[in-house]
């Protein structure tokens, strides 16, 4: 179905809602400066977009000259991204009204979400790149959004420079691919590339693309910006960057590495596997050494990127399903844990681990919610975080050969990560605080924290639906 028709519009409804809502909020906010109104508009439009996306489940069509595809994979990821944005916007209820640019905050989140939903269904390199840039550019200013946060400036500059540098790398790589094949469409690219098996230029392009997207995925050795930016940004922004936008890069990864570059999958797989091992190990070891919880979780987020990458390296349906599951799991866990930290840090005046001492007494609800999420992060059954890792390990085992080694390294890293997650839990539950400050537990934070924790637990107990739909989605990446 070519061209833009009314029916095409229906397929793009989630994107249209997000784009329109972004513009409306910008206008309304600049006239009224009404923060509550902006919040209501943002969350309602996200809910509407999610509803529109849910309606698309089960469809399988290609529209707009083959550049956009609506299938289970695309729709599932759209739903995931919009859902994570809803969580972030909802959790920002106490954060956004205190900043000068509350309206812009919502608008940027909406546009970034728009970029990610487009990414999920993009079928050619240009659409992919434009959608990816939309996501990136929308988030470049987010670290600066809270003018009281001094570190934000440095974080924003760092984020912008590394981000645009990586975009340049990607663009260069993609232009070589286009030069080699003369096509931008992912599937025709895959067909055309099958003739270029040993072309050195192809590998150069491939490495450029991996390096470029590796920045955004926070894969070692391209992760160096991530801890600084994650630490320097206001925590709600960190949550959004780590939970949602980073995962956008993985969606690109699925499409470029697993679909377009399938001709050289063996070589790509080896590189990705090596990077996954490096990322997991470096992230976990670095996290072990941190005393600052925010930085610790920034490194933990790097390590989890390595886990997701395992799914890309293994190149099978189950592996892709595992990656999708881990994207969901890590997204929810990240939102929960960072907003939990944000709340505690706001009360205790810092992210230092010592500040979490005695939280059990002063903020029992927060402590328990954080504990559940920490357990999920460490991959303890039956939480969702365990399931996604389990599926990844299963897929690596299934692939056999040296992938078994990859699975073992994933398991060992999971054990390693337990040490620092348990440290936070220990400080919260075991250390008593010198002066017992009663912390006011705000309803909205607790609600978000528990929404995340309960979701992780419930889906952990009954993962079959989610696993089934992830498997279904994976079939569209690896047939």
């Amino acid at each position: 179905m070519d061209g833009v028709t009314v029916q095409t519009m229906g397929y793009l409804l989630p994107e249209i809602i997000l784009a329109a809502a972004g513009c409306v909020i910008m206008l309304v906010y600049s006239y009224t400066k009404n923060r509550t109104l902006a919040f209501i508009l943002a969350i309602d439009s996200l809910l509407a977009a999610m509803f529109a996306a849910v309606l698309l489940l089960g469809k399988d069509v290609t529209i707009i000259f083959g550049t956009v595809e609506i299938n289970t994979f695309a729709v599932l990821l759209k739903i995931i991204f919009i859902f994570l944005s809803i969580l972030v916007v909802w959790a920002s209820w106490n954060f956004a009204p205190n900043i000068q640019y509350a309206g812009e905050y919502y608008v940027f989140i909406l546009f970034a979400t728009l970029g990610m939903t487009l990414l999920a269904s993009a079928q050619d390199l240009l659409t992919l790149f434009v959608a990816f840039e939309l996501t990136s550019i929308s988030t470049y200013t987010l670290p600066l959004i809270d003018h009281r946060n001094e570190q934000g400036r440095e974080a924003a500059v760092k984020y912008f420079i590394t981000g645009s540098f990586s975009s340049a790398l990607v663009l260069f790589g993609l232009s070589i691919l286009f030069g080699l094949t003369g096509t931008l469409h992912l599937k025709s690219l895959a067909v055309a590339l099958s003739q270029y098996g040993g072309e050195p230029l192809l590998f150069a392009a491939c490495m450029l693309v991996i390096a470029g997207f590796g920045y955004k995925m926070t894969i070692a050795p391209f992760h160096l910006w991530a801890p600084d930016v994650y630490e320097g940004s206001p925590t709600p922004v960190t949550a959004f960057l780590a939970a949602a936008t980073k995962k956008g890069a993985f969606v690109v990864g699925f499409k470029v590495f697993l679909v377009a570059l399938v001709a050289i999958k063996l070589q790509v797989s080896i590189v990705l596997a090596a990077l996954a091992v490096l990322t997991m190990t470096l992230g976990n070891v670095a996290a072990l050494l941190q005393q600052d919880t925010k930085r610790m979780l920034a490194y933990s987020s790097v390590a989890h990127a390595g886990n997701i990458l395992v799914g890309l390296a293994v190149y099978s349906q189950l592996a892709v399903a595992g990656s999708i599951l881990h994207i969901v799991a890590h997204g929810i866990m990240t939102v929960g844990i960072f907003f939990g930290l944000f709340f505690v840090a706001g009360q205790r005046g810092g992210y230092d681990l010592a500040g979490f001492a005695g939280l059990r007494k002063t903020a029992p609800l927060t402590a328990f919610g954080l504990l559940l999420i920490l357990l999920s992060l460490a991959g303890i059954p039956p939480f969702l975080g365990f399931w996604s890792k389990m599926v990844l390990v299963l897929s690596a085992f299934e692939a056999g050969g040296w992938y078994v080694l990859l699975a073992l390294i994933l398991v060992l890293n999971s054990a390693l990560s337990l040490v620092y997650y348990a440290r936070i839990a220990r400080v919260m539950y075991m250390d008593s605080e010198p002066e017992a400050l009663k912390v006011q537990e705000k309803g909205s934070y607790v609600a978000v924290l528990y929404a995340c924790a309960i979701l992780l637990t419930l889906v952990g107990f009954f993962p079959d639906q989610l696993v089934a739909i992830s498997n279904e989605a994976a079939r569209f990446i690896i047939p």
Partner: protein
Amino acid sequence: MISGNFLLSLMLFTPLVSALVVFALGKQEKQARALALLGSLIPLACSLLMLNGYRWGTVELQFVEKWAWIEDFGITYYLGIDGLSMPLVILSTLLTTLTILFSWDVHHRVREYMCLLLILETGILGVFISLDFFLFYLFWEIVLLPMYFLIAEWGGPRRRYAAIKFFIYTHVASLVMLVGIIAIYFNAGEQLGYYTFNMMEIMQKVSFARHFQLLVFPALFFGFAVKIPVVPVHTWLPDAHVEAPTGGSVMLAGVLLKMGGYGLIRIAFGLMPEAVRFYAWSMAVVGVVSMVYGALLALAQDDLKKMIAYSSVSHMGSVVLGLAALNVMGFNGAIFQMFAHGLISAMLFMLCGILQHSVHTRLISGLGGVASRIPRLSVFFVFAFFASLGLPGLAGFIAELTVYIGAFSTYQTLTLIAIVSVVLTAAYYLWALERAFFGPYNEELGEHPHDLYWFQTVPLVLLTALILFFGLYPAPVMDMVDVSSRFILQIVGGAF
């Protein structure tokens, strides 16, 4: 009569539900205790009902429940019970009730303490009755969390170190075991043509290649050996025991350690017969080293609780030796040893807790003449020590005797070395008894140390009665175990 079809689930989940009830309603200590006791009596009643309806003399699984759970991976909710698990299930439900009763004088955060004990019970029972690898692993991991918190919150001065050591040791071991399970899952899936975590199905329909067995068995063994624990990987146990609160120690020694032995028989032996035969001698060596080395370490301890902890290592070593013997006597002895050790070590740790409470020390060098001031407690101490060192007529003796008979017919020299541990065991118990309980009273311990309270007497009397009963008449447990041992041996293909 309750139908057998959901009795296991009822038993499994009542403690979990009771934990929630206790958490919700147990605002006051009294209520929390009463509710917890009530909540633990229901699974006990369930297990006794099952014992009543148990069909003797069959290896068939009984009270089976099977539902599809996560079909994409072939995971089923599959519960059942047989001669291997029945004694351990009863042990778990009984000890939980006794521990809750015994913990009547815990005043620090009673509600949470009771909740954790009940959650622990669900985890342990789940391990013993799951017949699906995945479910088994799930419960295996669930056990860690309440135990971690029990040690870390209610423990002694070095509790944080001990708790985290316990957690990391056993978690790493479980992960290694998980790798083994996943390997089994895929290998079995290739042979069957479909993937399943169903233990029984894999056991009946799949036979693994020799090299696969030799590779995977060590992973499983490692996972179970850390829990048992055997000597090179036992170091978490003394720390955990010394720092854990009495209730935690009782559960740890009484039932948690048995998970390792149970897993070894049910999974490692049932699935990997060739590997078992290949590694039998090495396992026997590990068992004997644990027995002798554990006993030597116990001999060197000044802290009574630590001494008992090392004696656990020593006694659980005999479980491994008995299993490695690969004959009916050895198997029966090993399983009976798990049961007997559950009763005896529970009693020993309870006594240690009472002693600590009443004279504020457990150091043998700081005690002395305790028997003259705390006579009733001392009587139980003497009884438990004798039970543990294997006095004929008590449960421990039957267990050790059968293990040694079984092991001797397979490994003469090793068994002779192992018997050294019996001498050592007698030595450390009698020596401790002499120094701590007899002789002149050490006045520094206080003018009028308190003797037993009613809630301490009841569990102790009950355990004493059981130890005596099974020492004189071991047939009920032995008969139950015997059929299953023969069945497993048939799979392993050892001598009869």
